[in-house]
Structure formats: C-alpha cells, structure tokens
C-alpha cells in the first residue's frame, strides 16, 4: 500500500535564470512542505531526465544538491511516460518495504535553457536514427501521421481536435501557474499555423520551463494522502513505423493491468488526468481508455462533460497543451492537480467529486503507456 502525501508544482512558462536543478529543487521543496516531511525523512529518490542538462546520474546529482543521502536513487527514462512510470515504481518501492518516503521529482529549463531549434531537434531523435530521422520528421510529424490515420478510420475531424485544445485552454485560465492565460476559440485553433498536418500550432503543447514533484509514502502522516490502488504499463513498440494497428496500442492493456488488482470499473472514475502532448494524443487516449466512445471524445468535451462542473473533469490545470510541457515534469503536473482535486484544495477549480481518479501517461509515439488509479482515503 502507498499514499501520495505531498505535491509540488512550479509555474510553467519562461523561468529566466532557473536551471534544471533550480526547478527540481523548488518543486521538491514544495512537495516536502506539503507532506510535512523534512529532507531526512526521504529515503528514496526517483527523478526524470533533462534534455538541457543530460547526466548519467541525475538522481544523485540532485540528491547531493538538495541535501539528501537516500538509500535508493536513480533516474528513469520513459519519455513522456516517465512521470507516471516513476509514480508506479515509487508505489512498488514503498509497498514492498524498500523505502518509506520516495521523493519523485523532475524539472527542466527546456524553454530558456536552449534554442527552440535545439529543442525541436533533440525531441525528433525519439525516431529511428537510420530509418526515420534522415527523412526530417518532427515529434508533431510522428503524431500527424497517427492523426491522419485516426481521422481516416474513425471519421474524426480537425475541428474535433480543436475542441480539445480549447478545453485545455479554458482550464488553464483558472490556474495562475499556467503558461497560457489568453482564451482561444475553435476558429483560432483552426487558423493557427500548420506544423505537421493535420496538427496546427494550437494542437501542440508548448515547450516550457518548470518543475514538479510528489512524495509517495508508506504512512500518511500528512492527513491529506491519496491512496494508490492500481498501476499498470504496456510497451508495444518504439517507432511509429513499427507501431501496431491503432486498435492494438498500449493504453487498453496498461489500463487493464491497473484495474485488475482491485477490479476497478472505468465507469466509476470521477476525475481523469490524461496525457495530452497533442490534441490527437488526448482524443485517442480518452477513447482507448473507454472514457469516451470511439470517435466521441470531442462530443463529450462539447457537452461539457470534461469541464470542472462536468461528469468527468479532465486535466483541470490545463494539461500539457496549456499549463505547459517542461519534459518529465509536464505530465507530473497532471498528478499534482489530481492530488489537489482529490484533497479538496483546488480552490476555484475544485470539482465536486474526485473520489476515484484515473491517470494515464504515454511516451514516445504512443509507445509506452502507464495507467494508475488513485482513491480518496
């Protein structure tokens, strides 16, 4: 058994002068304070990677910098799925008695720490170095390929994707830490400049500076812990060229593995935190996870179901699309927001009922999937 006992999140966007370690430290400090723990209480550290500050031992670099001598520490790399993979591993470590309090932390000055060209170029390397990268693809191009096929098979339109971008922006407007604070319309998403068809600028998450952290504990001394009640993964491929058919991607299997321990039914989920690197990612994952019928993610969004007052509030902080995406910390913000919602601390974004939450992250090009269920104590 494990509890998430503390969370920390910086604002995302331009954080001039902040290094990777600065952003990690800020988020970790907030998470510790939130959990009511001191540095000496932390006996495990998991951290993500930083493309701006690559290091073969980032967890111990951070541990030394922050002032912790953990019994267990290393970095984890699952692309965009890293945050949820770390949450799952921390849950396993705590449940099995290896550690009492695991600090999970990530941060990166991805926006101001490098040029935009360097960011785009380094991310494109997720493709195959011989059979894909020489063709000049980008991350949006990999997802553009997926989106073209998804539209072809399921009759989804570009407007359907745009609705999800608007939803995430509407949510970000309620969060002072979000990178974007100007409202957008479907028409503006449709008119935004093409990046890799059918994806346009506003279908894509931004590059951000930011940090996020949380603490997974054996005992809930904070009195606002939420319980991890299931987690599962699936890894079907690395490259989009070798991906299975759209119907055989990993979200479903990861969800099934996360559900089976407690026999959780998807219809009982009250809050959803779903990876949204692109609008297509969010649409597909919502439907693959059964949170919307096939081809109907946008219809549910149009109906208000995913809003703060809807039947299934979704990414109420604005998600990667509008809160921002600082690398590993980006998807960890989804977990931080889920925790705030489940503990009644989301202020004017507070939803009525977040008693059971489903979180889902993916890395690569829908390559690696991690699902997790959290329950109110």
């Amino acid at each position, binding site marked *: 058994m494990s509890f998430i006992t503390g969370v920390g999140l910086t604002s995302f966007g331009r954080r001039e002068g902040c290094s990777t370690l600065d952003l990690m430290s800020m988020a970790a400090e907030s998470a510790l304070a939130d959990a009511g723990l001191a540095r000496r209480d932390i006996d495990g550290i998991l951290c993500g990677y930083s493309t701006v500050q690559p290091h073969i031992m980032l967890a111990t670099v951070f541990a030394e910098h922050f002032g912790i001598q953990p019994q267990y520490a290393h970095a984890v790399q699952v692309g965009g799925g890293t945050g949820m993979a770390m949450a799952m591993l921390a849950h396993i470590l705590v449940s099995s008695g290896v550690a009492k309090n695991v600090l999970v932390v990530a941060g990166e000055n991805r926006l101001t720490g490098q040029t935009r*060209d360097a960011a*785009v*170029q380094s991310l*494109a390397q997720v493709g*195959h170095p*011989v*059979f*894909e990268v*020489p*063709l*000049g*693809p*980008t991350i*949006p*191009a990999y997802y*553009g*390929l*997926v*989106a*073209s*096929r998804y539209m*072809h098979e399921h009759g989804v339109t570009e407007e359907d994707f745009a609705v999800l971008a608007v939803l995430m922006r509407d949510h970000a407007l309620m969060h002072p830490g979000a990178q974007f604070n100007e409202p957008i319309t479907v028409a503006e998403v449709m008119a935004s*400049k*093409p*990046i*890799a*068809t*059918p*994806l346009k600028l506003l279908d894509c998450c931004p590059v951000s500076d930011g940090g996020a952290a949380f603490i997974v504990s054996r005992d809930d001394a904070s009195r606002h812990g939420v319980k991890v009640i299931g987690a599962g993964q699936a890894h079907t491929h690395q*490259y*989009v*060229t*070798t991906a299975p058919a759209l119907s055989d991607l990993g979200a479903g299997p990861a969800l099934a593995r996360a559900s089976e321990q407690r026999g959780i039914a998807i219809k009982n989920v009250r809050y959803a935190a779903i990876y949204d690197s692109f609008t297509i990612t969010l649409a597909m994952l919502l439907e693959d996870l059964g949170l919307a019928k096939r081809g109907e993610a946008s219809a549910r969004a149009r109906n208000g179901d995913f809003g703060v007052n809807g039947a299934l509030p979704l990414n109420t902080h604005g998600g990667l699309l509008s809160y921002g995406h600082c690398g590993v910390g980006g998807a960890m913000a989804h977990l931080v927001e889920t925790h705030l919602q489940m503990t009644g601390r989301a202020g004017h974004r507070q939803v009525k009922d977040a008693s059971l939450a489903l979180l889902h992250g993916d890395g690569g090009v829908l390559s690696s999937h991690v699902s997790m269920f959290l329950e109110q104590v």
Partner: protein
Amino acid sequence: MPDAADWTTGKDALNYQACRACKHIFYIRRAFCPQCGAGEPETKTASGRGVVYAETLVHRAPVPEAREHVPYKIVLVDIEEGARVMAHGTLDLKIGDRVVAGYRPFLGGLVPLFGKI
C-alpha cells in the same frame, strides 16, 4: 550483417528482411528476427510498390537545413511484401493511394520518395 545497401547507405533501393524460420517480414534491419529470435534473416530488395497508410505534410522543419524543403510530405507506406516503411511522398498523396518508390537527395543523403502509380 548481410548486404545492407539501400537508401540508408545511399543506394536507390528499399530493402526489407524476411525470417527464414517463422517467415516474419520486417523493415528495421537487424541480425535476428524480432518475432522469433532466429538468426540470419534474409535481406531482400522491395519492388517499391505499396499503399499509403498514413501521411503528414511537415511545415515546421526539425533542423535549419531542412527549412528550404518545407512543406514536405512524410508517409508511412505498406509495401506489397508486407512491411511498413517511412518515406517521403509527393504532395498530393492521400491514405489508400497506390504508390511506387523513387529516390531523391535530402539533407546530404538519399531518401525514398513515393508517388502515385
């Protein structure tokens, strides 16, 4: 490694591999079959004919050197031998189009460029 000369090494050809044990067909070259593990898969040259599975028109280039080429089309093509490949395509390509491979220089190398049959 068997004869690997194709577009990835600058030759105007598209190769794939076939497992001698389980008959699995695959594209990304290696010294064993990723399905059954058998060694020494056969490297074959594809006819170049296939069908477009997915397509995207890239407007934002990943590297400055690619900027002069935008927009360029990237496609996934199911070649008739049974593998899926990533390549360039002519700007008019749509999903389901029957295509054949040609080649063009791109960023200092040679890349396959599919066009309608």
